[in-house]
C-alpha cells in the first residue's frame, strides 16, 4: 500500500485534534484532543521514517510517547486540582482574569 495514505490519515487526525481543542469546553477533552494531535504527529513520523528508510523518525516517535506521558502527569495534576477547587473542569468557567 502506498505509505502516503498514512500521511493523509495523520493530517486528518491532526486537524480533528486541533478542531477539538478549539471547540470542546471540557478541559479533559481538550487535553485528549492535544494528545490526538501528538499521536497524529507520531503517525507522520513513522510513515516518513518508512519512506526515507532511516530510523530517525521512529526514534523521535518513542521520545514523543515519553513526552506525552510526562505531559499527561503534569496536565492531569493541574486539571484535577482546578476541578477540586471549582467543581468544574470547563475551560469557560476559568474566567477570573477576563478583561
Amino acid at each position: 500500500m502506498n505509505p502516503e495514505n498514512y500521511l493523509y490519515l495523520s493530517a486528518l487526525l491532526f486537524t480533528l485534534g486541533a478542531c477539538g481543542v478549539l471547540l470542546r469546553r471540557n478541559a479533559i477533552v481538550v487535553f485528549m484532543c492535544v494528545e490526538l494531535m501528538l499521536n497524529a504527529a507520531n503517525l507522520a513520523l513513522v510513515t516518513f521514517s518508512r519512506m526515507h528508510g532511516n530510523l530517525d523518525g521512529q526514534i523521535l516517535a518513542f521520545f514523543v510517547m515519553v513526552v506525552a506521558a510526562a505531559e499527561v502527569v503534569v496536565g492531569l495534576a493541574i486539571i484535577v486540582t482546578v476541578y477540586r477547587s471549582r467543581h468544574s473542569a470547563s475551560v469557560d468557567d476559568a474566567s477570573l482574569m477576563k478583561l
Partner: protein
Amino acid sequence: MNDLQAPDIEWVALSPSLIVFGAAILGVLIEAFLPRKQRYYAEVAVSTLALAGAFAAVVGLAAGGHASGEAQVAGMGALAVDGPALFLQGVITLVGLVSVFLFAERRLEPALHGASVDSFAAAPAAVPGGPAEKEAVRAGWTTTEIFPLLLFAVGGMLLFPAANDLLVLFIALEVLSLPLYLLCAMARRRRLLSQEAAVKYFLLGAFASAFLLFGVALLYGYAGTVSYSGIAEVVSGEPGAIEPGLAGTMGNDALLLIGGAMLVMGLLFKVGAVPFHMWTPDVYQGAPTPVTGFMAAATKVAAFGALLRLLYVVLPGLRWDWEPVLWGVTIASMVGGAIVAITQTDVKRLLAYSSIAHAGFILAGVVAVTEDGVSSVLFYLGAYSFVTLGAFAVVTLVRDSGGEATHLSKWAGLGRRSPLLASVFALFLLAFAGIPLTSGFAGKFAVFRAAADAGAMGLVVVGVLASAIAAFFYIRVIVLMFFSEPKADGPSVVIPSPFTSTVVGLAAVVTVVLGVAPQYFLDLAGQAGVFVH
C-alpha cells in the same frame, strides 16, 4: 550487532546543562530523603551552587574559545556549542541564579504559626481554604519542590538555544515548559487565579507544542533527517547523497513550507509575539510573582535563541518566505503590545503587555538576518531579562493585607512613602521605555540600527513610534508614583531579606551599567554572533 558503537559525548562542552540537570535530580532526592526542616536550606544551597557552577562552566567554555574559533557541534550532532548558545546560556544561568533568590525569599509573607513562609502554597494540591490546606499551614509546611522544578526548567532552557537537531529542540521545549506549568499553579495567595493561569498556560502550551511537533514531523519528512545542517543542505538543494526516499520528498515544497511555518509558530508562542500572545497577560498575572519574573526573563531568552538558530541555520534558504511573515508579526507585536498596555490597570498585566511589545522589538533584530542582527538580539535579551526580573522583584515588595497590591491605583504616591523603591522601579520603567543611560536604550538602539542597516527602515519607523506609545504608559506609572497623594489605606513596602534586596540591587546595577558603558557587552555580543553549522 557487533558493530554497535558507543556515542562520542563531549562531556566538558556539555557541562553547563549536565551540572544543572544533575543538581535538579539531587534536589528531587533531597525532597525524598531529608527531613522537612532541612530541605529548604539544602535546596537553596544546591540550586545556588549548581547555577553558579553552570555559569562558571559557560564562562570557562567561552574563555576556551568555544564561543568563536573552536565552536563545535557536540553530542553526536545534537547540541551546538557556539557563540550565541554560550552567550544565552550565560544569561539564562545568571537569571536562574537570581531567580533562586526570589524563590527563597521568606520575609515578605507574615509568619504563620511561628514559621516564616515563602510566596508558594503550603500544599499546592489541596483545595484552597480546605481542611487539608489548613492542616499543612498549621504544620508549617512549605513547598520546597519549587527549587528542583526551577532547575529542570533552567536545564531545558539551556538546551533550547543550543539544540542542533529537531529532536533535541522538541525535548528541550517540553523540559522547560512542564516545570513552568506546575510552578504557575503554586501561589500562596489568590490560589484560584494561580490555578486558572496554570490551566490556561498548560492547555495553550501543549496545543502550541503539538503544532511544533507536527512541524518537526513535516520537516523530517521533507529532508529525511532531523539534523539542522542536514535539513539546511536539502533546503538549499545540495544534499550530500540523494537516497530514493529523499528524491521523492525533497521536491515537495508543501512539506517544507507548512513544516517550517508550524515550527516557527510553536516558537513564537513561547516568545509571546502577537498573534500567539493570548496566554501572556493571564499567566503573568496569575502565576506567583517570583515565577512570573523568572518566566518572563528566562523563557524569552531561551525561545529567542531557538528561533534565531532555526531561522539562521535551518531555514536561511527560505528567507524570502519567512521574512514578510515575521515583518507582520513584529509590527503587530510592537504596536499591539504597546496600545493594549495603555488600558491596563494591573501592574503585572501591564508588564505582560510590555513584554509582548518587547518581543516585537527583539524580533526587529531577528528580521535583520545579519551578524549584527544576531549580536543586537543577544545584547537586548541580556539587558531586558535583568530589567524584567528587577521589575517583578519590586512588585513582590509592595503589599497590603491581601498580599501583593498589584492594582495600579494602589501604587499612587508610592514615591512619597518609599522613595528608594519607587526610584528603582522608575529606573526599570525608564529602561523598558528605552530612555538614554539605561540598558533599554542601548538594546533598542542596537536592534534598530541592525534592522536599519539591513534595509528594514519600515520596521524601525514603526518601532520608534511604538516605543513612543509605550513610553507614555511607563511615564504614567512614574507620574502616579511620584506626583499623586498617597492613599490612607495604601499598601506598604515590606523590608525584604538580603535575597530580594540582592535581586533588585543587581538588576538596577546591570540596568545602569549596560546603559552607561554598554561597549564591553556589545563587543561581547558582537563576538558571539556567529552560528556553528
